[in-house]
C-alpha cells in the first residue's frame, strides 16, 4: 500500500515536471495563473518538494472553489488572470547593514513614519521589512539568534529550517482552508517566519512592515509563528500603501501555533490604501488569520486596528484546543467614504476550561459599511468553556452602516457564552462640549473616537498605540462638520 502511494507520487510529480516551461531566470512573471506559474514560483525560490506539494494541492483545490459570497460586501469582479503573481525588487547582493539598503526605500519608510534605524536603536525592535514580495532586510537577527529565536523571511526559513516549516506549515490554516487561503498557499511569495524555542521569552517586539509597491502585483504574504512550550512573543504587523488608482488584491495568511503554556500576542495596524473620497481605487484585503492554542494553558491574543483597504474581509480566529487555553480578539475597525469592512473573529472551544474574550469596536463614517461577524463555537467536550463578546458600533453621520452578525453554537451545557452589543452615534453635544473648550471639531472627533476605542488601543504595545491613535484621527478627517 505504502509502496503504491510512493509510486503514484513519483509518477504524478514527474509528469508535472514536464509541464514546467517557464523561464525561472526572469525576475518578473507575466500576468495570469496556472499550474506552471505555481511551479515557477516554487522553483524560483528553490523550494524543497514538500513546498511544491503544498502549493500544488492548494492550487488544484482552489480551481474547484468559489469566492465566498456570504460577507456583507459588494466585491467587484476580480479577474485572477489579470494579476501578476510574482515580482521581486532587483536583488544585488546580501545586505550587511541598513546602510546598504536602497536610499529610496529608506526614505519611503521614513515617509511612512517608520524610521528603521531609530527603531533599531531606540526601541530595540527587530524589523523585517517586506517590499513587494521579497524581504529586503532583516535586522537584529544576531541578538535573537543567541536565544535560539528564529525571525526571518519565510523563504529563508524554508531554506534554513525546512523541518520546522514542514512540521508547522498549514497546521492552523490548512492549504485548502478557504478560497483566499488556498490562493495564498498556491502562490505566496514570501512573508515572515518566527520560532520561539521552549522556555524563551522573546526580549523584544518583533515587527514587520508590509507595503505594496509595484503596480499590478497581488500580494500574497504568509506568516507562520510558532511559540514552543513556555515561550512568549509579541509580534507587530503594520502596513500602509501609497496612493494608487488600480484596485489591488491582497490575500495574506497568518498562522500562529502556541504550544503548552506559550503566549503569543499579535498586534496589527492595518492602513492599506482605502481608495479616494469617491471610492476609486484601494486595496482589497482578504486575509486569513488563525491561531491554534495547541498546548494546554496556551494563550493567543489578536489586537487589531483596521483603518485601511477599500474592502476588508478578515476574521482573526482562535482554535482553543488545549485545556485551559485562553484567547482574545480586540479590534477597532474604521470605515469612511466608500470603504467596506466585514471583519470579526471565530472562537472555537474544543479543550476544557477554555476562555475567550471578544471586544470589537466598529466606527463607520461617510458612505461606508462596517460589519462585525463573529462565531463562538463550543464543542461537546469543551467543559466549562467561557466566552464574553462585546461588539460596539459607533456611527458618524447617517449615511453609513453598521451591522452585527453574531453566530453562537454551543454543544456543551456547562459552558457560558455572553454577548453584548451597542450602537451609538457620536454626540453633537460631545463635539460641542469639546468645541466650547477650544478643541476644533476635527480634533474633537479624533478624541471622542479614540476614547471610544480606548479599551482596544490600550492593548497595543506603546509605540503602536500612539501610531494607531493618529491613524484613527487621520482616517476620519472631514467626516463630521
Amino acid at each position, binding site marked *: 500500500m505504502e509502496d503504491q502511494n510512493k509510486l503514484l507520487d513519483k509518477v504524478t510529480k514527474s509528469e508535472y515536471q514536464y509541464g514546467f516551461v517557464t523561464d525561472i531566470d526572469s525576475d518578473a512573471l507575466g500576468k495570469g495563473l496556472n499550474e506552471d506559474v505555481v511551479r515557477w514560483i516554487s522553483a524560483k525560490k528553490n523550494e524543497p518538494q514538500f513546498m511544491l506539494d503544498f502549493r500544488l494541492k492548494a492550487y488544484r483545490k482552489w480551481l474547484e472553489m468559489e469566492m465566498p459570497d456570504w460577507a456583507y460586501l459588494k466585491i467587484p469582479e476580480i479577474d485572477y488572470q489579470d494579476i501578476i503573481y510574482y515580482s521581486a525588487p532587483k536583488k544585488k547582493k546580501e545586505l550587511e547593514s541598513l546602510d546598504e539598503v536602497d536610499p529610496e526605500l529608506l526614505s519611503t519608510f521614513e515617509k511612512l513614519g517608520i524610521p528603521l534605524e531609530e527603531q533599531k536603536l531606540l526601541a530595540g525592535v527587530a524589523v523585517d521589512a517586506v517590499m513587494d514580495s521579497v524581504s529586503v532586510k532583516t535586522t537584529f537577527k544576531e541578538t535573537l539568534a543567541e536565544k535560539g529565536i528564529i525571525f526571518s523571511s519565510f523563504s529563508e526559513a524554508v531554506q534554513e529550517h525546512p523541518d520546522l516549516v514542514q512540521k508547522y506549515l498549514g497546521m492552523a490554516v490548512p492549504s485548502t482552508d478557504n478560497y483566499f487561503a488556498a490562493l495564498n498557499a498556491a502562490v505566496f511569495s514570501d512573508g515572515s517566519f518566527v520560532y520561539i524555542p521552549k522556555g524563551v521569552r522573546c526580549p523584544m517586539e518583533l515587527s514587520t512592515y508590509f507595503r505594496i509597491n509595484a503596480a499590478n502585483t497581488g500580494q500574497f504574504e504568509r506568516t507562520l509563528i510558532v511559540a514552543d512550550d513556555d515561550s512568549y512573543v509579541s509580534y507587530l504587523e503594520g502596513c500602509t500603501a501609497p496612493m494608487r488608482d488600480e484596485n489591488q488584491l491582497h490575500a495574506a495568511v497568518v498562522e500562529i501555533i502556541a504550544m503548552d503554556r506559550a503566549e503569543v500576542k499579535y498586534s496589527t495596524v492595518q492602513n492599506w490604501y482605502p481608495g479616494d473620497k469617491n471610492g476609486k481605487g484601494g486595496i482589497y484585503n482578504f486575509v486569513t488569520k488563525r491561531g491554534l492554542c495547541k498546548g494546554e494553558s496556551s494563550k493567543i491574543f489578536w489586537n487589531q486596528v483596521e483603518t485601511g483597504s477599500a474592502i476588508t474581509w478578515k476574521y482573526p480566529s482562535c482554535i482553543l484546543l488545549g485545556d485551559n487555553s485562553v484567547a482574545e480578539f480586540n479590534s477597532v475597525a474604521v470605515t469612511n467614504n466608500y470603504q467596506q469592512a466585514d471583519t470579526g473573529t471565530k472562537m472555537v472551544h474544543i479543550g476544557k476550561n477554555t476562555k475567550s474574550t471578544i471586544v470589537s469596536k466598529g466606527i463607520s463614517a461617510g458612505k461606508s459599511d462596517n460589519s462585525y461577524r463573529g462565531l463562538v463555537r463550543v464543542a461537546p467536550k469543551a467543559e466549562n468553556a467561557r466566552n464574553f463578546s462585546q461588539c460596539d458600533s459607533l456611527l458618524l453621520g447617517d449615511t453609513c452602516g453598521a451591522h452585527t452578525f453574531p453566530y453562537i453554537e454551543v454543544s456543551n451545557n456547562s459552558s457560558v457564552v455572553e454577548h453584548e452589543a451597542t450602537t451609538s452615534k457620536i*454626540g*453633537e*453635544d*460631545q463635539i*460641542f*462640549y*469639546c*468645541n*466650547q*473648550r*477650544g*478643541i*476644533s*471639531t476635527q*480634533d474633537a472627533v479624533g*478624541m*471622542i473616537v*479614540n*476614547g*471610544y*476605542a*480606548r*479599551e482596544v488601543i490600550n492593548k497595543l504595545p506603546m509605540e503602536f498605540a500612539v501610531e494607531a491613535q493618529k491613524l484613527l484621527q487621520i482616517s476620519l478627517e472631514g467626516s463630521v462638520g
Partner: protein
Amino acid sequence: MLIVKDLHAKVEGKEILKGINLEVNPGEVHAIMGPNGSGKSTLANVLAGHENYEVTKGEVSFFGKDLLDMDADVRSKEGLFLSFQYPVEIPGVSMVNFLKTALNEHRKYRGKDELKAGDFLKLMKEKKELVEIDSQLTNRSVNEGFSGGEKKKNEIFQMAMLEPKLAILDETDSGLDIDALRIVAHGVNALKRPDNATIVVTHYQRLLDYIVPDFVHVLYNGRIVKSAGKELAFELEEKGYDWIKKEVGE
C-alpha cells in the same frame, strides 16, 4: 466686552430668543434669572456657538469682534467660557488628556508654546485645590460617572484652567448641596479679576448670596423684561416670577 443687540434665535424652527439686549463690561457680574423654559440656556448656547441654534436677527460683539461669525472653538479661544447646565460624558477620554488638549489649543491660538507635561500637571494641581475637586476625578474620563455636584465642580475647575475673559455659568448651582455651592462660589469669586466678567444664569436667589451680582436681569419668554441691581434678586425671591408675568401684561 460683550454687546448683544436685538438677538433673535430659533431652535428646531421655533423662535426662542425674541430680541435680547445686553451689555457686559470688564469687572462686572451679571445675573440672568427667569422661570424654566424662558430661554436662559438657549441664550448661553447661542453665545457659545451651538450649531443647533439658528440666529435669525441681531448682532453680538465680543471685544469689538463679531462673535456670531466665529466657530464655537474660536469663541472659546477668544475667551468665552460656558459652564454647562448638563455637562456631557465623554467615555474613554481622560480629563487630563482633554484639558491638556484644550489648554494647548488656547495657547497655540495666542502664539504661545505648548505647556510641558510637568508644568501642566503643576497647574492642574493648583487649580484643583481651588475648587476642592477630588484628585481622582481628573484621572477619570470626562464627566463619566461623576455625580451631579462633581460635574459642576468640574466645570468650574475647567474654567479655572482656561481663565476666560467672560464666563457664562448656566445653572451651576442646581444639584449642589450647600457645601458644594459654597466651594463653587468661592472658586468663581477667586477667579474674578478687574479684566474679566461673569454671567450667572440661575433661577434661584441662593447662589447670589455667594456670588454677588452688579446687575440682575429677568429673562422671560425670550426677552429681558427687567434689569436692575442686586436688590431685584431679593424681590424675585420674595414675590416669585408671577409678579414679573403680571408686569409684562400676561
